[in-house]
């Protein structure tokens, strides 16, 4: 769309410059590295580059959602690499399995943000200048603006102008007198659009700072706690998994302890859907803080100074009693099993008895909170609710291989020990509560039932509050910058007897008020335009004109 010399200026033809992040053109310097740097800078901070970078950012995120990602699911990544041995290694080298931590992803958003700074700073200056300076000079031919009107008024131009300024509340106005006795009023409003736009862009920068702070100094520790077993304190080695921020060295974490998981409860609706999970914990805050109680629930973490504690998972730990051939009774032999079927909490795991027994003893198998039998006669779980706990275990005796020093999963046994013959399968059994199995050497193993465990996550993110504040500013800035329109209004008021340069609608009857007393008469021409997206400017213009011509500005009785 281009407005030729004779087409009227319509709102749509006006550059929607308010959204533009392009700074005003800079004077070019001659030759040399300075010019080169200047040109590169100008190019980087141009709107076009920003657009391209936005697209690149979107594009760069795509693999992060379609390929498995290490931070979300390392096991899936390993499986994927195993399935696609050739090119997945190249992908891996290029960081495609942890896209959001790669240098190329960072480069994209950092460039975008540099470009953003490059245009926000000059625009900040321009905007400040615009707010301080007067609205522009009134054009000669107002009828060529997108909206225009004209009407007679009583009073000399200067009086009419003064009155109009009074009526234009909320508008920034400037009154100018021209040589031929014509008085003009230029008015502008809607500066909040640019203000909002700048707030939005600045808030994006603040958001990035907040996110970065979290990535550098935040951490996340996860631990599995079983009911009645001792808890842990906030120290790296005590967690089952610990994800430190880049600048977290692991010492000096906020002093805090979960003394114990007192009780875990899962509530269910009549149809079996879980309705709420609750973990009653005892914790203490600070050095030697007094123990306090709290209930962690889904959507309701425990929020402490600088730390948030979440309930993130739960499951069962079967309990056994082992009676040795010599009559010694080992009570409360138990270990957490991991759910393999989320809907019924059929779980898998291993119980290992290492100390005080030779040969060592291990139970490996599945646990069902509500045991039933499937078509093949194997144990399954019918429900996640612990109504009829059961286990199906294979019993091993021999050397579990834990002394070799190689790390071993606590949820399974080392199959190499079985393959080498050091660990032998000696029995297998499906047991319900109170039932036992007797081994050839006289050892008796009794299944006593189960208790619950819960995984608890302790998170620290020092940037979070900043991010929230920035997010609120982003929305507010957006609202202002998309809802407010920058608009201008021009009044050209000439004495009635002056030569009729304007095309005045003379059929208009002169206001009654105009005849009331004042001798001087004026003709007011009004023109207006919305600088961005006209929207309902027509309506507003009509209303303003109505207000301006409403009653005679000057009355001399």
């Amino acid at each position: 769309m281009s407005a030729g010399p004779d087409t009227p200026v319509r709102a749509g033809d006006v550059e929607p410059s308010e959204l533009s992040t392009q700074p005003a053109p800079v004077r070019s310097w001659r030759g040399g590295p300075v010019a080169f740097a200047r040109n590169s800078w100008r190019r980087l901070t141009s709107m076009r580059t920003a657009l391209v970078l936005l697209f690149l950012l979107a594009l760069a995120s795509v693999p992060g959602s379609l390929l498995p990602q290490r931070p979300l699911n390392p096991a899936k990544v390993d499986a994927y690499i195993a399935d696609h041995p050739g090119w997945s290694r190249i992908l891996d080298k290029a960081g495609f399995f942890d896209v959001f931590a790669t240098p190329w992803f960072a480069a994209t958003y950092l460039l975008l943000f540099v470009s953003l700074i490059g245009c926000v700073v000059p625009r900040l200056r321009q905007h400040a200048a615009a707010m301080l300076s007067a609205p522009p000079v009134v054009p000669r031919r107002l009828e060529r603006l997108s909206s225009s009107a004209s009407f007679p008024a009583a009073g000399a131009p200067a009086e009419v102008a003064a009155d109009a300024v009074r009526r234009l509340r909320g508008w920034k106005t400037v009154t100018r007198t021209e040589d031929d006795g014509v008085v003009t009023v230029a008015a502008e409003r809607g500066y909040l659009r640019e203000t909002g736009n700048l707030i939005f862009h600045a808030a994006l920068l603040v958001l990035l700072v907040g996110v970065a702070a979290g990535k550098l100094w935040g951490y996340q520790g996860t631990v599995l706690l079983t009911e009645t077993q001792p808890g842990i304190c906030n120290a790296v080695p005590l967690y089952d998994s610990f994800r430190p921020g880049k600048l977290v060295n692991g010492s000096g974490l906020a002093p805090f302890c979960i003394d114990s998981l007192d009780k875990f409860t899962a509530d269910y609706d009549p149809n079996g859907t879980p309705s709420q999970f609750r973990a009653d914990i005892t914790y203490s805050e600070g050095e030697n803080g007094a123990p306090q109680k709290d209930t962690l629930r889904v959507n309701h973490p425990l929020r402490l100074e600088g730390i948030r504690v979440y309930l993130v998972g739960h499951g069962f730990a079967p309990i056994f009693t082992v009676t040795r051939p010599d009559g010694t009774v080992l009570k409360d032999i138990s270990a957490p099993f991991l759910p393999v079927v989320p809907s019924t909490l059929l779980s898998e795991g291993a119980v290992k008895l290492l100390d005080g027994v030779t040969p060592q003893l291990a139970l490996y198998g599945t646990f069902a909170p509500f045991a039933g039998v499937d078509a093949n006669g194997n144990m399954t779980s019918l429900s996640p609710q612990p109504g009829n706990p059961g286990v199906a275990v294979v019993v091993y005796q021999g050397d579990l291989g834990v002394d070799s020093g190689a790390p071993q999963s606590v949820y399974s046994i080392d199959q190499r020990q079985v393959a080498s013959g050091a660990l032998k399968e000696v029995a297998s059994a499906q047991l319900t509560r109170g039932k036992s199995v007797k081994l050839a050497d006289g050892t008796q193993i009794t299944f006593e039932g189960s208790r619950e465990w819960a995984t608890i996550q302790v998170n620290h993110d020092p940037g979070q509050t900043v991010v929230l504040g920035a997010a609120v500013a982003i929305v507010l800035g957006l609202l202002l910058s998309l809802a407010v329109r920058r608009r201008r209004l021009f009044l050209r008021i000439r004495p009635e007897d002056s030569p009729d340069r304007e095309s005045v609608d003379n059929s208009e009857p002169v206001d009654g008020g105009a005849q009331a007393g004042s001798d001087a008469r004026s003709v007011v021409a009004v023109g207006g335009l919305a600088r961005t997206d006209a929207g309902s400017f027509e309506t507003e213009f009509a209303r303003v004109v109505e207000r301006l011509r409403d009653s005679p500005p000057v009355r001399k009785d």
Partner: protein
Amino acid sequence: MPVNAGLATLSDHMFTWSIILYSVALIAYCGEYAFGRRGKVAATSPERELVGAGGPSVIKVGSMSGAKAGGSDRSRRAPQAQRFGRLAVAATVAGLAVQLTSLALRGAATHRWPWGNMYEFASVVGAAAVIAYLVVLVRLPQVRYLGMFLLFPVVVLLFLAGTVLYAPAEPLVPALRSYWIAIHVTTISIGTGIFMVSFVATLLYLVRRRWELAVEAGRTPTRFPVTLGSRLPGTDILDRMAYRTVAFGFPIYTFGIIAGAIWAEAAWGRYWGWDPKETWAFITWVVYAAYLHARATAGWRGTAAARVNMVAFATMIFNFFVINMVVSGLHSYAGLT
């Protein structure tokens, strides 16, 4: 509390009825379109219209934006078209009322906010799109017959919702039992519905644009869908409709994502974790932001910006269908098995 099966069944029936009513509306819009005569006028000559009060007359292909233009256009329409148009709007409003009742009944049956799975979410999005269209209609009555182009995707979406995506009325998993569902999902679905209207306007913009180019070059377009262009409003009105809807929907969608992040902080322990759904919400957000920027960049305005709008909408649809149904993440509440 147990699900009230009677209310749930009633809700399902109402849902079916809303699709039927929308289909009736769709047919009526087609009738309005078919009987509308403005197409012929436009096809034979570029419109001559008076633009702006007191301004000189200009010849401008496809400018139909002034209030006067809309008025003269309407009076030019055949009475049958008027009748079809009014029937269409009545059926649309009735369909919307029935659909909202269906949602309310599902909420009553399950004692929760009725947008916890893909079926319900799709229904809310459809309703939001229809509401957004009706709001546009109040402001730009001359685009009424465009309802046909909007109701077509709405009916397809609702049909898919009622078949492929359907999930019986059930209570929600604990993570979804939070007042944040009312804030997050409501705003996201309103934003999505508004973007859908913008998408339709953009699609029509591209069609009309090609038609205008052909007419300016002195050719008579013969190929579908360019031929549709003769009966569409001018590119400026379609472009403005596309822009205003995005300008309205974008802050809402942004707020929806932020509400999701706040909820995620309480539910999953972090406000952002690049879960696939989050990643695609981010992509959609970035591409709509690019659209807003493109519209303000020389050389990008017009067709290029329109293409960006299409891409943005495509990423949102991808997020809804592919990410929900194919890729698994934390955000998997689709209710599909």
